[in-house]
């Protein structure tokens, strides 16, 4: 059963953690507009531990949001919790060049 995509943002004292849930594809498009508006900290962690599949459209959405957060908000973004295939996609598409992988505490 496909899980409905959603984004949850947990505000910490020094960083915002963005939890993605479900598959990231063309249906996730609208959610990413809100993401840019909602993030307020300079340090941002993208958590993919509840993400299923990310297709090429999802990769484009992630690249766009990472670039927007960096340029519009001066954010430093890191990534955690990606599964094996998504880790490979992030390496292949340069996402890790913009937002390096970090280990969860």
């Amino acid at each position, binding site marked *: 059963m496909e899980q409905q995509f959603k984004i949850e943002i947990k505000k910490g004292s020094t960083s915002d953690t963005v939890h993605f849930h479900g598959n990231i*594809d063309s249906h996730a498009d609208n959610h990413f507009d809100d993401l840019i508006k909602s993030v307020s900290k300079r340090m941002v962690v993208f958590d993919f531990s509840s993400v299923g*599949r990310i*297709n*090429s459209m999802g990769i*484009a959405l992630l*690249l766009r949001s990472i670039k927007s957060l960096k340029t519009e908000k001066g954010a430093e973004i890191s990534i955690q919790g990606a599964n*094996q*295939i998504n880790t490979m996609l992030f390496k292949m598409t*340069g996402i890790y060049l913009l937002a390096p992988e970090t280990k969860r505490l």
Partner: protein
Amino acid sequence: MFTLSRHGRVICSQVPQASCNGFDEVHEWPVLSSEDKEEIISRVERIIEGNNEHHEFLRQRAALMLDEMLENALYNAPRDLNGNQIYAKGEKRSLVSGEKILVRCAYDGERLFLEVSDSWGKLSPEIVQGYIAINLAHDTSTDRAGRGLYFMWKFMKDFYVNFVPGLKTSVGGYLLLNPDTCEYGAT
């Protein structure tokens, strides 16, 4: 019919290197609307029995490949007379009269054969080679065309495109349970 070398060059051939010949059972599922995509992906995931990390990684790759192949057939292949895309990605759509999309799948415990055919015949060797070339340039362009095809080429062994202009495109290849050390999804 053409395949792509590991350097992204087109190799024309009469006979596909990958096929479902030799598999005990071949599954064929017609796609009637965009709503069928998730159900077909689930069916293929269920065919890959086994609970170790290799099986799980094969299921992850199979789901991604089918997603990309079906998105291509549903949204990238349909073009109007000017070559413009007819349907937007994510839009719910049913196939129009005369349009066909077929998924073929077979698994022997080591290799998963996947093929998706559509009745548009728009994916020429030049287009595919162009997409692979721009995706081989390792920058981080956001909306790069052909990224899904690039993923297929990277992950599938003997990835091929069978193309009859205006009539049919078939895209397929194998996913391996235990990929080679440096190719087809090996880490």
